[in-house]
């Protein structure tokens, strides 16, 4: 934890991120920061808007309002359009913000990688190809050189890097297996390996421990710490396993119904009344 002690470098800054689907406000004015080398967790009950927040960072959704900065560079910034203008512009920000929107592939190229809540592997492809595809975007080849095999060196380098990565992740012996034929836990591992293959600086994990037993969860805890250190990553994750979250998070943000209700170290969060309320419900609310 010493690396965050002095003058932390800001990796991710979300400012007033709001995502509205019709009448439903899935994320409401979310502001948060993630600093270099940290492991930060985003928790909250089901439907709190955690995955929506992730999708806003990775460009899958265009937020209705708000701004996302990555390493000091604005990657998303939306001026609300149409009716939304009245709702948001006057209240939250007095000045219009220029529209900047980045497609997911641009964001990935900048160094943000992610995994998905419902595993999204390239199902019918092999483990090796799954990881190799991630190397494609940083290759200098074009269609002609690739088709006519003029890029042998680059292709070999991509393959060597993939082999090395799979070896580090202990997946090399499975390299010719079809991705969907792997057991669930290994599919999760493969998804993380694939995300690492994009050479990220910042890794978003969406419920990495979902469906894992306590022992696997413990292994995952060590694994996340280990990849953070060996790949010099900053990790931002959504997780429901409180053991895991409390063990490895430097800081925790808590969302409920799209709004940030608490923020702090694991100790703070464990004793925060609003968090306990949100998770367990209060008798008054329950009767409503």
């Amino acid at each position, binding site marked *: 934890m010493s690396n965050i002690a002095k003058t932390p470098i800001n990796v991710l800054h979300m400012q007033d991120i709001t995502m509205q689907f019709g009448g439903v406000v899935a994320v409401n004015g979310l502001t948060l920061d993630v600093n270099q080398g940290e492991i930060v967790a985003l928790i909250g009950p089901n439907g709190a808007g955690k995955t929506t927040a992730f999708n806003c960072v*990775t*460009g*899958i959704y265009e937020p209705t309002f708000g701004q996302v900065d990555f390493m000091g560079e604005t990657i998303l910034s939306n001026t609300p359009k149409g009716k939304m203008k009245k709702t948001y512009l006057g209240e939250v920000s007095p000045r219009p913000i220029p529209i900047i929107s980045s*497609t*997911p*592939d*641009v964001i*990935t*190229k900048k160094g943000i*990688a*992610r995994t*998905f809540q419902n595993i*999204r*592997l*390239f*199902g*019918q*492809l092999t483990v090796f*190809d799954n990881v*190799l*595809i*991630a*190397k*494609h*975007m*940083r*290759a200098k*080849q074009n*269609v002609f050189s*690739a*088709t*006519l*095999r003029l*890029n042998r060196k680059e*292709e070999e380098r*991509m393959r060597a890097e993939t082999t090395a990565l799979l070896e580090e992740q202990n997946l090399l012996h499975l390299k010719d297996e079809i991705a969907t034929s792997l057991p669930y836990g290994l599919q999760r591992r493969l998804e993380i390996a*694939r*995300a690492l293959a*994009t050479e990220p600086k910042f890794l978003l994990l969406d419920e990495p421990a979902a469906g894992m037993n306590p022992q696997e969860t413990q292994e995952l805890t060590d694994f996340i710490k280990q990849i953070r250190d060996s790949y010099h990553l900053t990790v931002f994750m959504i997780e429901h396993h409180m053991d895991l979250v409390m063990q490895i998070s430097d800081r925790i943000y808590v969302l409920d119904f799209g709004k940030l209700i608490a923020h702090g170290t694991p100790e703070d969060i464990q004793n925060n009344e609003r968090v306990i309320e949100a998770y367990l419900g209060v008798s008054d609310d329950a009767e409503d």
Partner: protein
Amino acid sequence: MKKNAVSKNKLYTLAALLVIIVLLAFLQANSAQYSYQISILERSAIYAVVAVSMNLLTGFTGLFSLGQAGFMAIGAYTVAILTIPVDSRASVYYVNGISPAIANLHCPYWLALIIAGILAAALAALIGIPVLRLKSDYLAIATLGFSEIIRAVIAAPQLDRITNGSYGLKSIPGFPNLFIAFGLPALCILLMVLLINSSYGRAFKALREDEVAAQAMGLNLFRYKELAFIISSFFTGVGGGLLAIFMRSIDSKTFSINLTYDILLIVVLGGIGSITGSVIGSFLVTAGREWLRFFDNPLVIGGFVVPLFRSGFRMVIFSILLMMVVLFYRRGIMGSNEFSWEGLGRLIRSIPSRIKRKSKAQKHPAGIPLCPESMDDSKKGDNA
């Protein structure tokens, strides 16, 4: 040992190539005698190019497009206009006259084929901008519409002096020899195979498997869809050009929607996502149509005229055969597998056991086979 296997396969491939070349030389030498068979094989080879290019789009990139006939028409007309000998143009355009812009435009067939591909690709790039934002069935309907528009434009009276309207274009010089007639399709297919096995091919497959994950891997969705569409249309255009050289006379009716369906049929029959499947499919479908001509002639057995045997009946039989294939081999002949010498070896070795199994099944005619069969069926449904 592994190296040994690789060199063995190379040897087999070389031997197969040699056999094909010898066969071609034989056909070339006796081309007058075997002209019917040669024409079937040539047409199959050309359909194979278009089928593989459609498979590149449908099977490997996951874009279901039905615009093949339109792009083929562009390729065919380009090649026809560029290769009809200048001397015979007056007789081709004898009704409407020829537009002065193209009257003296002439180039060798190989250059015409490349230009045909480029024109088809350029149009695909333009059409792709609005159309590729659509998904699955909607994309198919939109491309189908475009293909019909292209055909209608070609047949339009305003373009009579270029496309010769409903009279079509004739006296297109044919292939100089059989090696070129089969070599060019083979080259096109080889290029597509190389592309599919390259890093770009993997990117296309990623798009097919999961668009969201592909984007998260840094692939620009629109750019790669457009790229696949352009490349596929290029080879479709070249395929159309080859068809024009093969048929030697074309008109807009050749490129009706039926042509697209023929190609689709080949792709589905061969197996979506299998290049070998598309090639085998195109030879089977094209040849099958001809073999079945037997049903078109009236059949008389001992003075009794067998009913139903009349002109057009072969299409009924053909359709029934197709339905059977689709019902029992739902994933096509090859599924999504490719040809390999090991696979062929395994198939040959498995034939005796298959025959054994069949004879066993025949021993228990009723009751027992029903259950596993129905289970088998549900499994196939999952795969599809």
